[in-house]
């Protein structure tokens, strides 16, 4: 169950403390407060007079909160116009988080701005003695995110892939995952075997992460996305077929075993009025 008592279900306004331009289209905003979010959880960000949308928490250290976003629609474009000192409403944190055990060897697979929550995972997991392989993928060099931050962490090895081959492996990050899991299965491998795979990125990438992880029999946890309204399990907009599971409560981080049973995973999603759209 989610940590309901700790959630804020009424937005509280915070000021934008800092803005970092990550790439041409991607920004990180830092807010002057904490919601007590864990890696993988999301918050609802309200831009008064505009709209409110879910965002993955990119960082929360107990005193400030960060999100990293790509301006894709009217809401995030309006958000991109905001300045330091402007007010935004935050409520949450909502949903499940990534789960690991102390000392685990974990692979992180990040696609696009999925790199932000993956950095949050890495920064927390290293505190528990975990060793991480972070695979960051993007279309091209200019879209890669959080490389410096990930590199700065001890016990994190960085692997980069780009579709166009401008840097790192030419191709998909899931191909790198396949290689890492293959090598890890070798009894002569020098590193300890990989215990789990965490992924955040486009759903078709997640589908592929699931396939690769299943092939190597390594459990995975995937961060899914559906249209969110309430964020606390009552409106029914983010439910998934065939179980009717509410992604805002039982997700966004879902184990691979559960994803494998979701008939709509990698096939379709519903919009704000409940209409199905194929991926």
């Amino acid at each position, binding site marked *: 169950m989610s940590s309901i008592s700790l959630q804020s279900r009424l937005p509280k*306004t915070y000021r934008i403390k800092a803005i970092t331009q990550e790439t041409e289209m991607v920004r990180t905003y830092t807010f002057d407060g904490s919601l007590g979010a864990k890696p993988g959880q999301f918050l609802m960000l309200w831009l008064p007079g505009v709209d409110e949308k879910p965002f993955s928490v990119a960082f929360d250290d107990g005193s400030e909160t960060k999100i990293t976003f790509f301006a894709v629609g009217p809401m995030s474009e309006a958000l991109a116009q905001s300045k330091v000192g402007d007010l935004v409403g935050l409520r949450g944190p909502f949903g499940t988080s990534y789960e690991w055990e102390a000392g685990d060897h974990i692979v992180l697979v990040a696609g696009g701005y999925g790199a932000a929550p993956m950095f949050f995972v890495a920064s927390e997991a290293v505190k528990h003695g975990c060793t991480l392989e972070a695979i960051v993928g993007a279309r091209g060099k200019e879209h890669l995110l959080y490389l410096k931050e990930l590199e700065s962490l001890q016990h994190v090895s960085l692997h980069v892939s780009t579709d166009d081959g401008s840097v790192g492996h030419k191709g998909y990050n899931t191909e790198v995952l396949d290689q890492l899991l293959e090598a890890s299965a070798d009894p002569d491998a020098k590193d300890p075997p990989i215990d789990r795979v965490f992924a955040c990125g486009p759903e078709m990438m997640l589908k592929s992460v699931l396939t690769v992880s299943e092939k190597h029999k390594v459990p995975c946890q995937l961060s899914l996305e559906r249209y969110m309204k*309430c964020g606390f*399990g009552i409106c*029914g907009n983010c*439910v998934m077929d065939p179980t*009717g599971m509410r992604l805002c409560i039982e997700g966004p981080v879902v184990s691979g075993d559960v994803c494998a049973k979701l008939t709509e995973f990698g096939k379709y999603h519903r919009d704000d*009025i409940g209409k199905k759209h194929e991926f």
Partner: protein
Amino acid sequence: MNLSQTVLGITFENPTVLASGILGITSSTWKDVAKKGAGGITTKSLWAKEHKGHPNPTIIETDHWMLNAVGLPDAGPAKANEEIADFMKDHPVPLIANIVAGLIDDYAKTAEGIVPLKPDAFEVNISCPNVEDEFGKPFACSAPDAAKVTAAVKKVIGDIPMFVKLSPNVDHIGEIAKACLAEGADGFTVINTVGPGMAIDLRSRMPILANKVGGLSGPAIKPIAVKCIADVYAATDGKCPIIGTGGVYTGEDALEMILAGATLIGIGSAVSRHGAEVFAEVCEGMQYWCTNEGIDDISSMVGGMHKELASRNA
């Protein structure tokens, strides 16, 4: 201890019903809620064509209340057909199709599209308080308008029973119920959300809901719901089944509504705190209380307050 209720020829294994607007979009969710213990399911409001809801924030909550202005989004008849047909294949519990329209004449059109899917009952939403900017005052706020909608729907739904969902935001809810009854309503859902209400963020000085105002629900509204149920029960001489809805979180809340005159109990806002397990929890609470009190059939409780008052006045 028997919790089952037979209402207008439909048997509900227990009196709890998923209220409209809550988790009501897909067949897979309805089945999940039924599996977790709801005695019946009400769909989210269905329209004759696609209808956009309001932008977010649409639902906010504190310990005492919930405020919503979701704005009745719906993907229209094709989606309703797909989801309802899928649910009716298994049909684990009775399905109540909640329908809505912007104009009196359009209600019949919405109902016509749903009739072939053979829901167990209709619930006619004439009382949503958060689409006033689009459609004006809800029809439930005027006895003649409420009666006209009832008559229009009755004409097209044949033998399928019809509950009219009433608004608490009126002077005399009993009068509205009587006007609907005269035009063929079979029962009532009492109540829809209260208000509308408003919540303002202090720092930004902005109303939090994008729609500015929204319907109030949750624990705070239960006493209003109980009073409205009692009024409708009295106005219709206890002859019409009532789905009592508004602030039910426990078995005792449900029993209070049953004493006021409810036969079935709609549960909505409580799902946000207790999950869909709330239906089983409310049933267990009723079982426990009734067993301790030596009551072996829930139907003997319906309208109990009215009977008690009458016996004391006799």
